[in-house]
């Protein structure tokens, strides 16, 4: 069953076609990786899926509903949550507050004026669990602005998880991480696999090949191939344009 489906999705910037008739079919429960060289349009596609960017043509279906023109907050509330390549957290709030606010976004709403957010047991429990899964429990009371880079990336992930998503759009969760940190996040994602349907954009090929059920290759805005890790490794065109190997 398809969790997220796109039909001939298009995004143009002037004459430049950044997303060129992309049709993806991401199955429920799978971890689907999206790879491609710099400038292939991966983040643009994620932004279209999350709703931050309008599509010029094509359709997006999520969980049986058409969401092509649904606003960001509505997609988030229906369980389609994203993380950002460039860390996007609330710098002045503590780690726990960051996660709890993310939980409030989907489990409650903002129209509560009197009771402290952290007194809400549901939001708090979701936040504490997400912080723990992301490995930040020791830093729960730390102000986000004071976290080290790798921890900020972990918080980025914790916020996405606290929202109790059905579907995760992860935009380079390992961007800028050391090899050791990447390995830790790979393990973390392995734990999340199957619990959520995941679309993972990632440059770290070791992580992608270790985690992904299927991989789509995006080049100049077009999906040139979708297949398993072995199929990707064997595909001559993919090797040529992406893995940087000359074909005979």
């Amino acid at each position: 069953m398809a969790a997220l489906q796109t039909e001939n999705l298009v995004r143009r910037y002037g004459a430049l076609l950044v997303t060129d008739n992309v049709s993806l079919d991401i199955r429920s429960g799978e971890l689907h990786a999206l790879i491609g060289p710099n400038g292939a349009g991966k983040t643009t596609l994620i932004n279209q899926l999350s709703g931050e960017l309008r599509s010029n043509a094509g359709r997006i279906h999520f969980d049986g509903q058409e969401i092509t023109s649904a606003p960001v907050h509505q997609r988030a509330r229906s369980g389609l949550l994203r993380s950002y390549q460039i860390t996007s957290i609330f710098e002045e709030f503590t780690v726990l507050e960051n996660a709890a606010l993310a939980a409030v976004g989907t489990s409650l709403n903002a129209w509560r004026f009197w009771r402290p957010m952290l007194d809400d047991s549901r939001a708090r429990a979701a936040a504490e669990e997400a912080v723990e899964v992301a490995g930040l429990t020791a830093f729960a009371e730390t102000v986000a602005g004071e976290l080290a880079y790798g921890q900020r990336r972990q918080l980025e992930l914790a916020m996405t998880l606290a929202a109790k998503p059905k579907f995760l759009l992860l935009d380079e969760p390992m961007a800028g991480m050391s090899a050791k940190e990447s390995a830790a996040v790979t393990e973390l994602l392995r734990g999340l696999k199957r619990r959520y349907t995941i679309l993972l954009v990632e440059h770290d090929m070791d992580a992608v090949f270790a985690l992904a059920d299927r991989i789509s290759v995006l080049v100049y805005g077009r999906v040139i191939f979708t297949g398993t890790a072995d199929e990707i490794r064997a595909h001559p065109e993919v090797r040529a344009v992406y893995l940087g190997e000359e074909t005979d």
Partner: protein
Amino acid sequence: MKTSSAFRPSTWIPLLLLGLLAIVPTVASGFDQPYWTAFFARILIYAVAASALNLALGYGGLVSFGHALFLGIGAYAVGLCAFHGIGSGWLHLLVAVAAAAAAALVIGAISLRTSGMAFIMITLAFAQMGYFLLVSLKHYGGDDGLSVGSTSRFGPFDLGSTSAVYYAAWLVLVAILWSMARVRVAPFGMALRGARQNVKRVDAIGLQAHHVRLVAFVLSGMACAVAGVLLANLNAFVSPSTLAWTVSGELIVMVVLGGIGTVFGPFLGALLFFVLEEVLKGFTEHWMAVFGPVVVLVALFGRRGIAGWLEALNRKRPSPGPPDIVAPGRA
């Protein structure tokens, strides 16, 4: 955590000041100095207005340069009602709050489409429109203003005397400070403060930043109008000068001086603003020459104003009870 926070200087010093302010009318009549009551009543009223502005400006990061409009709407609600022989305070309050809400809804809906400098300019433009509208209403005194013949009556309680306005203003201030403390950490306040830090993320987690900001702007305008109602009763007079753009500026100065985005900051800022003005005026008529640099220094070096300095005191003294995790100051 809750018990120990009350013992922090940043909490008990403002609370002590509030407590002392409660006895000002008694002390003033004891010393036969009625002027003191009027002077501090003004401070309380502007503290209410500045706290109201803080919801939009401090929590929401919405630099409204037109909040004097809402103060003016509140004042003129009393002035115009009294002019037409309506003396019910409840009706004054209803008209003030409803008119301010309607105005804030329209202004907010338009100006929130922009940000930064454009937002500042649009809010200023709307306030100026209100100002010139009232100047042009010659029937209601135009720029000479309008004296308030009958003050607001709430049943047996009449805001006709200075001390009555004083106690009412004190209660309203306590109520708004209490509300600001609650809202600050409630989901609404967190979403609002979150939108100031990272508006994109607020939407991405399923909250509508735009609606949160609009509601904050409207609530802020409504609370400011309540201050206007009190002000009209205190002065028994309303004039377009209440809506002057300089008043909007002074409200911003009070918030910045006291500590933008803090609960007690606007109250402390209003207090310092008027006390400093009064003291400096005693030395020189060019008091602005001294006052201006003080504001500049606070804006430059004390990012959180007076409230920020009090918070710094929290860290110097070991807190009683279980050790709180206090965020180290950021450079």
